[in-house]
């Protein structure tokens, strides 16, 4: 696909999708009203909303949720894109590198110990964040100076250790706790609050911008380690830095939204298959498409089973995989 076209389509699609997602729910709000309310809150201009209930639905409940979905989608997708290049493995994502399992252990510990003495003061989010960083630090320390294949194997091994620990903790959990754990692992943005958004958005925004700055260097990693070295890149240092940024991004996103799978794996490949692998456009496009996709998935997660909700993790793969498989079989030109 033509790159400027893809950029235009996605840049328009993101706000449109977000506004549509805000308008649809248990109570459908006309698009015009949604726009009016959001515009009023963002700019302070225009008339205050006539109906306080409508205002509360749109601004207090749905807008933060939709914004969080967009931010989380961007974060997951960008992490996947970077990790796939860092370990030169098309299967790489935060799960394969062990980050997600680290976050899961942190979250499960807090859920089952109920904020007990061991983790005094740590909430589920903070514990998940620390878990992801711990996994990232381990992979980083063990994988230092390793070739990409070994690095990804180190990530897998670290992931399994965290997974074992998680399973062990789960064995001792009550059925209620297990259900909470399962919902956490499948991910959700239902708990979105305005006060958590600035931090998450800032971390995802700044990290994504930093990673995009490294676009040219990421391209060099595609050429292979020896060639990248001959082109003047300190490959080990670059890989370490990218791993740290990826772990930070993953930890932040998983902490607020749980373990949402498949987005980090699929979205980068979708973009590569349609507009190529140059990271200077891959990363921004991946962020945009990840946002649009997760906003849509979240919309479906709360409308398909109304009045109930489905966890995001169930739908990300269920909806995305068929399209991805179709694209995989159709677009063979870039192999």
């Amino acid at each position, binding site marked *: 696909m033509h790159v400027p076209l893809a950029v235009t389509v996605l840049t328009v699609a993101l706000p449109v999708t977000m506004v549509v997602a805000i308008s649809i729910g248990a109570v459908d709000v006309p698009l015009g009203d949604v726009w009016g309310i959001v515009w009023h809150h963002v700019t302070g201009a225009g008339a205050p909303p006539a109906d306080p209930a409508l205002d509360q639905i749109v601004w207090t409940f749905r807008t933060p949720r939709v914004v969080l979905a967009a931010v989380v989608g961007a974060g997951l997708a960008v992490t996947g894109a970077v990790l796939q290049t860092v370990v030169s493995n098309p299967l790489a994502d935060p799960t394969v590198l062990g980050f997600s399992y680290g976050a899961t252990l942190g979250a499960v510990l807090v859920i089952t110990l109920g904020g007990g003495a061991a983790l005094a003061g740590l909430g589920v989010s903070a514990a998940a964040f620390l878990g992801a960083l711990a996994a990232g630090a381990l992979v980083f320390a063990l994988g230092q100076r390793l070739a990409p294949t070994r690095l990804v194997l180190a990530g897998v091994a670290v992931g399994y250790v965290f997974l074992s620990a998680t399973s062990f903790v789960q064995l001792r959990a009550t059925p209620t706790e297990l259900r909470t754990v399962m919902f956490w692992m499948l991910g959700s943005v239902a708990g979105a609050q305005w006060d958590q958004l600035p931090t998450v958005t800032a971390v995802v925004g700044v990290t994504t911008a930093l990673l995009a*700055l490294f676009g040219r260097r990421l391209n060099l990693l595609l050429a292979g380690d*020896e*060639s990248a*070295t001959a082109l*003047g890149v300190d490959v080990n240092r670059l890989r370490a830095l990218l791993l740290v940024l990826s772990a930070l991004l993953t930890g932040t996103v998983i902490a607020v939204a749980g373990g949402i799978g498949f987005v980090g794996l699929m979205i980068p490949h979708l973009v590569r*298959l349609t507009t190529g*692998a*140059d990271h200077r456009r891959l990363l921004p496009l991946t962020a945009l498409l990840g946002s649009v996709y997760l906003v849509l998935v979240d919309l479906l997660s709360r409308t398909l089973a109304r009045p109930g909700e489905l966890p995001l993790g169930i739908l990300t793969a269920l909806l995305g995989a068929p399209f991805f498989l179709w694209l995989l079989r159709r677009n063979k030109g870039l192999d």
Partner: protein
Amino acid sequence: MKLIVDQLHITLDRTPILREVSLQAREGDIVGVVGPNGSGKSTLLRAVYRSLRPADGVVRVGDDDVWALSAPAAARRTAAVLQDAGGNTTGLTVTEIVALGRAPHHGLLGRDGAEDRAAVSDAIDRCGVRPFAHRAYASLSGGERQRVLLARALAQQPRLLVLDELTNHLDIRARFELLDLIRATGVTALAVLHDLDLATRLCDHLVVLREGTVAAAGPVLDVLTPDLLADVFGIRAGTERHADGVIRITYAANPLA
């Protein structure tokens, strides 16, 4: 730019790979590195393109020790075409790969300017890859790929080319085309070649490595003597300059005897 390798020692995992290796290439020279498998040829190249720090000794490109230069500064002088150097380039087009050669000329924030586009375009033309410049690298034949990687090296605007088995797995015409391309650049080159016949055609001088040391070095005819070919490569063969000026190796009826 001239290349001087002086008393190089390289050790990998406590095993000495190169010992007391010295060689020189004058400005514009093409120096071939030959030797049996495992004699340290690729390791020598890694030291030259600043991927492997020597335990002792020095590599000078121009007047500078490559390890006294920053990595990008060294990469502005020396470009390498390595074996299987396509890496994981799924999804990059030929032009994008050639443009990677501009990386050492940029900092983190640098954007491609007119000079970069001109260098890329020039490299694409010189290596004859214009006809498939917009295709995916993965869709190219072996010979086309090597020309793309050479174009990437030329886009670096190097003063020294390091070439590792550039002609491996290529058909005979593609091999001769690559030799012509390299000679036409006029850039000083250090080339590892497995094929002795190609080495004699491409190179002004040869360095023969055996088990990490220099077994012989000098002009092609002086180096590839029957004794050396028997001693280092274990074959019976002779080398002579034919009436057309080309140096050819003639292998004995039973070269292994």
